């Protein structure tokens, strides 16, 4: 971990020093241990203080999907009517597998300019689920997290120390992850990455095997927790619509309250809009203050897209996402034969 952190700092420093990038986005220590948070360092910051890049950290709580932060720098991309006059900034960034795949999806949608970005790829061992960690220590406030190999030592505010196997508190998104090593980056860092997972399809199959009444109850009880704060949408790197359907007032698609049907409609439509774009990074799940579990729905959409259209949100820069194209071979059984053709 420390070796990777040193590499990230070194490369970021040289990129900023050499004016290869104007801005670098990485992680820094958060204000409440053991969290980290997105960190933005400009070339100016480094000119003023050469040690500015020492703010950058790498560890087991670098969960935020940073891809969501780049879209704002590349607004009015070429091809749009309104051309901008000043050049686009050059942005450097640390990416895990999930961040990189989200970036690829954004590039395909012309929301990120790959040519204006310099990417440091870090092999990912999986990030720690801070809620799971809190459960393991009985809800105590964890002040420090020490890692030795496959074990994590959590030191609580009252001094109580708890030893936990790291793998037991790794996020579900990371256990499921098929792509723990980012591909297509400019500066790949060498190191250990976790063994790729199955996209969550094994545990998803268990849910698929439930009766429709059981699945409905699951969905209902999750949706009942939603407070419509939009944290899921805002944290999602590929939710970049300037105006979300949920915000239309002239042709109002859904209500603004906490009526269960409105929460259901919001999440269903949002997940459907993510077909072939969602990387199952679980930024939505982590951002939710109410702990709404959206995982079965994002996993299910990914599985359907793979089975119906043979598309996976991987690192391939040229494959067209299914929502932006069609082929004569596209599955249409769910339209022409809804009873029999649905997988």
């Amino acid at each position: 971990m420390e070796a990777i952190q040193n590499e990230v700092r070194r490369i970021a420093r040289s990129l900023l020093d050499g004016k290869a990038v104007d801005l670098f986005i990485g992680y820094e220590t958060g204000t409440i241990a053991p969290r980290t948070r997105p960190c933005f360092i400009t070339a100016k910051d480094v000119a003023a203080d050469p040690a500015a890049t020492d703010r950058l950290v790498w560890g087991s709580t670098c969960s935020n999907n940073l891809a969501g932060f780049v879209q704002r720098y590349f607004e009015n991309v070429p091809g749009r009517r309104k051309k901008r006059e000043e050049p686009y900034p050059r942005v450097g960034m640390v990416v895990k597998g999930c961040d990189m795949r989200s970036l690829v999806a954004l590039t395909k949608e012309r929301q990120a300019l790959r040519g204006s970005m310099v990417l440091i790829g870090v092999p990912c061992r999986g990030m720690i689920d801070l809620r799971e960690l809190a459960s393991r220590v009985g809800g105590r406030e964890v002040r420090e997290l020490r890692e030795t190999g496959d074990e994590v030592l959590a030191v609580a505010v009252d001094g109580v120390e708890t030893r936990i196997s790291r793998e037991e508190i790794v996020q579900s998104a990371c256990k499921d992850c098929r792509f723990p090593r980012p591909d297509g980056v400019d500066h790949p860092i060498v190191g250990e990455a976790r063994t790729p997972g199955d996209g969550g399809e094994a545990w998803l199959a268990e849910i698929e095997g439930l009766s429709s009444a059981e699945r409905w109850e699951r969905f209902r009880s999750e949706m009942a927790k939603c407070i419509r704060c939009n944290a899921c949408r805002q944290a999602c790197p590929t939710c970049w619509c300037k105006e979300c359907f949920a915000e239309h007032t002239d042709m109002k698609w859904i209500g603004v309250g906490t009526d269960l049907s409105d929460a259901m409609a919001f999440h269903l439509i949002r997940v459907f809009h993510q077909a072939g774009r969602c990387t199952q990074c679980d930024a939505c799940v982590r951002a939710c203050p109410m702990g709404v579990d959206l995982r079965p729905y994002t996993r299910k959409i990914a599985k359907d897209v793979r089975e119906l259209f043979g598309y996976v949100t991987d690192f391939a820069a040229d494959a067209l996402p299914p929502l932006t194209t069609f082929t004569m071979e596209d599955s249409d059984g769910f339209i022409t034969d809804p009873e029999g053709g649905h997988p």
Partner: protein
Amino acid sequence: MKGGTTSQVLERSRLAELLRALGNSVIVYAPVASREPEHVVELEPVAGPGARQGAMESVTLEYANTRHSPKRLFFPQTETMFRYDNDALAGSAPASGAIAAEAPGIVAFGVRPCDALALTYLDKIFAPGLTSYGDPYYTRRRERSTVVAFACSAPCGSCFCTAVGRGPAGTQGADVLVTSISGGRLCFEAVTDKGSALLETGASLWSRADGATKREVEAAHAAAAKAVPALATPEGRVDRDAVKARMDKGFEDPIWNRLTESCIGCGACTYLCPTCHCFDIADEQHHYQGRRIRTWDSCQYPQFTRHASGHNPRPARKHRLRQRFMHKFSYTVEKSGDIYCVGCGRCVVHCPVNLDIREVIRAFSAPGA
């Protein structure tokens, strides 16, 4: 309103009895550990109308604070203001607006002192006083409520009530203050007449607090206040007037750009905040029947200030983030003299990017900022 100096002691093991006795006439809310994950605690009805079966068994006193603030007991996220239908309108009968009048009384047990203080701020907005308009929905519920605050014994790393509020044993907004003391006992101190009345419930449950008990309570309060992390500002607390002056002067300060860098523009902070109180009003109509609802709204959303013309005076995220902090540290100070932040730390904990309000305070506390 100042009640007597009544202090009484209740065994923790008899708390359920007290809550049940209170539930004879009103809804009793108490901190309940959720089933999954169990360390999340919310105020839930445990006795009286609407209580969930088994909720009383999950009442816990082992919590830093509830995830939701208690504002939703008085200012629900979605509130039906009235219903209407075509027949009633044709017959010139008024729309049925008696919904708030039906609001039952509430005892809110286990409200943390920071959140109790926040209720006094909401009172200034919704109850007649600061403006000449009283909000009948909110006021009705507040009038019929008793707030039993529970003094903090173990403040969190995200707490800063001593910097902006009245500390972990503050009594503002509370009718009763409860303190956990040795031997599994709870000391109840009446703060208002309503609180004194509550302490008369179930005479056999109580024993009188003696001098030693009172000294123990005081020691517990002092220890908790010391345990709240000091704010890393020059004064260790918020200098209300200085922060306001610097924010007013710094409306266009580039610091706002930096503070906005990581903001993702969600409304989690505003919805969990015990003092944020902005709302939207919408009509939901199906054929000839409908209802007018009031829902929470957030200054972090672009449509919050969007005009019918399409113009938006706060088009960028920076403008909206600045609004949230200026509202709390400048506009409300101007109107009522209060900082609309009580230091509960919910926004610090739940912000998906750990954008910390304490850093905003610090940025505008530094001389020359």
